[in-house]
C-alpha cells in the first residue's frame, strides 16, 4: 500500500500538526495571510513540478492560474454563484482549455515547448488586459471579489477572516499534495518519469506518449486553476499584471531552490524562500534582483536543491553508520 500517511507517518503528521497549531501560537493576521499565499504557491509549484517530471518546463502555469482566478471572479461575483461550485468548475475549465492548448504544444520538444508556452502566457495576459474590458475590468483590475461562505441551517461561516482562509487553503493544499503524490507513484507517474529519459523508447513498449503527456498537462492545469480560484478572494483584486512572467520566474526559482528531483522540493522551496523574503522585507526594492541571484547561484552550486542536499547528508550519515571502520 503506497499510502502517504501510513508508510512514514511521523514527519508528515508532525508538519501537519505544526501548520494546524501555528495560527494560535503566532497570532498575527499578516502571517496568516502570507501562509495562505504560500499554500497557494505550493499548489502551483507542485503542478509545475509534475509537468517537469516529463522534462518539460510549462511556463503557462500562471496563465491557467489567471484563467482560474478570472473565472472565479466573474462567475462568483458578477453572476453570484457559490464559491464551492465555481472552484471545481474553474479547475475543470482550465483543464479543458489546457486540453485544447495541449494538442499543438505537446508535440513540441525542448526549446520549442518553452517558447510555445511563453507565447500562450503572453497571449492570456494580453487578453485579460485588453479584451472584454467591461467583463474582466482590464488593466486596473477586477475588484471587489466575493469571499466564499458556507450557509447551512443553523450554521454560517464566512471566510472573511485570515484564520478561516488559512485553514481553507491549507486543507485544499493537503488534498492536492495527496493527489499529486498518488499520481506520481501511480503507473502514469512512472510513464512521466520515463518520458523525460527516453520518449522514443517508451513508445516502443506500448505507452501512448501524447496521451500520457496530455494527461499530465491537463492535471497540472486543473490544479493551477484551483490555485487561481483560491488566490482571487484572498487578494481581493486581480489584475493581469499579477500573472506576468515575473511571477512565473519566481515559481521556477521556488522549485529549483527546493529541488526538482524530490517530491517535497517545491514545498521546501516555497516555504524557505517566502520566509526569507518576509525576513528581508526592508530590502524590498532588491527583491527581484535577489531572486535572480538565488536562482542562478542555486542552479550552479546546488543543482539538486535543498532536498538534494538533505538527502545527500542523510545518505552520507547512513554510510558512516554502516561502515564504522
Amino acid at each position: 500500500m503506497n499510502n502517504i500517511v501510513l508508510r512514514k507517518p511521523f514527519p508528515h503528521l508532525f508538519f501537519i500538526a505544526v501548520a494546524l497549531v501555528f495560527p494560535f501560537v503566532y497570532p498575527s493576521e499578516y502571517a496568516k495571510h502570507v501562509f495562505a499565499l504560500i499554500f497557494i504557491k505550493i499548489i502551483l509549484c507542485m503542478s509545475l513540478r509534475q509537468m517537469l517530471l516529463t522534462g518539460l518546463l510549462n511556463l503557462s502555469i500562471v496563465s491557467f492560474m489567471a484563467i482560474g482566478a478570472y473565472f472565479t471572479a466573474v462567475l462568483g461575483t458578477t453572476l453570484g454563484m457559490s464559491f464551492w461550485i465555481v472552484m471545481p468548475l474553474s479547475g475543470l475549465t482550465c483543464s479543458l482549455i489546457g486540453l485544447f492548448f495541449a494538442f499543438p504544444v505537446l508535440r513540441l520538444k525542448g526549446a520549442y515547448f518553452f517558447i510555445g508556452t511563453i507565447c500562450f502566457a503572453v497571449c492570456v495576459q494580453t487578453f485579460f488586459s485588453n479584451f472584454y474590458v467591461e467583463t474582466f475590468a482590464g488593466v486596473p483590475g477586477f475588484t471587489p471579489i466575493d469571499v466564499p461562505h458556507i450557509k447551512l441551517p443553523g450554521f454560517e461561516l464566512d471566510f472573511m477572516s485570515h484564520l478561516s482562509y488559512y485553514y481553507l487553503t491549507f486543507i485544499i493544499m493537503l488534498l492536492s499534495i495527496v493527489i499529486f503524490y498518488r499520481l506520481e507513484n501511480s503507473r502514469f507517474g512512472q510513464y512521466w518519469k520515463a518520458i523525460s529519459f527516453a520518449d522514443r523508447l517508451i513508445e516502443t513498449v506500448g505507452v501512448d506518449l501524447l496521451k500520457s503527456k496530455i494527461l499530465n498537462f491537463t492535471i497540472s492545469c486543473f490544479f493551477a486553476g484551483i490555485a487561481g480560484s483560491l488566490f482571487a478572494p484572498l487578494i481581493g483584486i486581480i489584475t493581469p499584471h499579477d500573472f506576468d512572467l515575473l511571477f512565473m520566474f519566481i515559481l521556477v526559482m521556488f522549485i529549483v531552490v527546493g529541488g526538482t528531483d524530490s517530491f517535497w522540493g517545491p514545498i521546501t522551496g516555497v516555504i524557505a524562500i517566502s520566509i526569507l523574503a518576509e525576513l528581508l522585507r526592508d530590502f524590498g526594492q532588491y527583491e527581484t534582483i535577489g531572486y535572480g541571484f538565488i536562482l542562478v547561484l542555486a542552479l550552479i552550486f546546488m543543482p539538486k536543491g535543498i532536498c538534494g542536499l538533505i538527502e545527500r547528508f542523510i545518505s552520507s550519515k547512513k554510510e558512516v553508520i554502516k561502515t564504522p571502520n
Partner: protein
Amino acid sequence: MGTQEILAILLNSLMLGMLYILIAMGLTLVYSILEIVNFAHGEFYMLGGFTSYVFFSQLHVNYFLTMLLAFVLIGGFAVIIEKLIFKRYREQILPAFMVSLGLVWILSESMRLIFGNWDKSVPVAFPGIIKIGGLSFSVERLIVTIMGAILIALLYIFIRFTKTGRAMRAITQDKDAALLQGVNIDFICSIAFGVGCGLAAIAGVLLGSVFYVSSTMGAPVIMKSFIIIILGGLGSIPGCLLGGLILGFIDNFASVFLTVPKVTIITFAMIFVLLIFRPRGLLGHE
C-alpha cells in the same frame, strides 16, 4: 492610403525586420552551437541601449564608435557570462533556460537600480529627411536599416568564409568529429556567444536612438526574436531572415489597421497554427 504612407510603413517594417533578424541571428547562433536557449538575449540588447545612452548621449562619443564600443564591451561581458555560467550547461536545454531566466532579472533589475525607472531618450544621430523622387524618408531610419543589412551580411560572411565560422559550422554538424579535427570547442562557444550578444547590443544602440532606452526594453524584443526563430526554425539562418521579414511586415501593417493587443494575439495565434502543421518551423530541420 497613399503611396507615401505605404512606402513609410514598408521602410519601417524593413528597419524593424532587419534589427529583429540581427537579434534573432545571435540567438540562433547561440542555439546551434551551445545548444541552449538563452532567454536573457534580449537583456544584451537592453545593455546595448544603455551603452548608447552612456557613451553617445552623455559622453558624446561618435555614433559608429559607440556601436563598436557596445559590441566589444557587451560582447566581452557576454563571454565572461558564458565562461562563468553557460559553459557548464552546454547541451542541457532545461537548466540553461532556467539560468537564463535568472539572468534576465539580474540584468534588467541592476540596470533599473543604476539608471532609475524612467525611460531615457537618446538624441537622434542623423536628423533630417531625404527626398527621393518626391517621397521623403527619415535619414536615421534609412541608416539604421542599411546598418542592419550590413551587419547581417558581415555575420553571414563571418560564418561562411572565415576559419572560425567554418569551425562553427563544423560544430553544428557533428561535435565529436569537429573535436577530432582539432576545433577548440570552448573557444568557439565563447566566440559564438560573444558575437551573438554583441550583435544584440549593436541592435540596442541602433534602435535606442529610434525609440528610447529603458530597463524593460529587452522583454518585448526577446519575445519577437523567439517568434522569428520559431517561424523560421531554430538554428536555421535563412529561416531567421524569412521569419524576421515576415514578422516585421505583419507587425507594421497590422498595427496600421488594428490595435496593438489584437496584433499580439494574431502573431501568437499564427505561431500556434504554424506549429500545428510544421513543428520545426518553416525552414527548420531536426
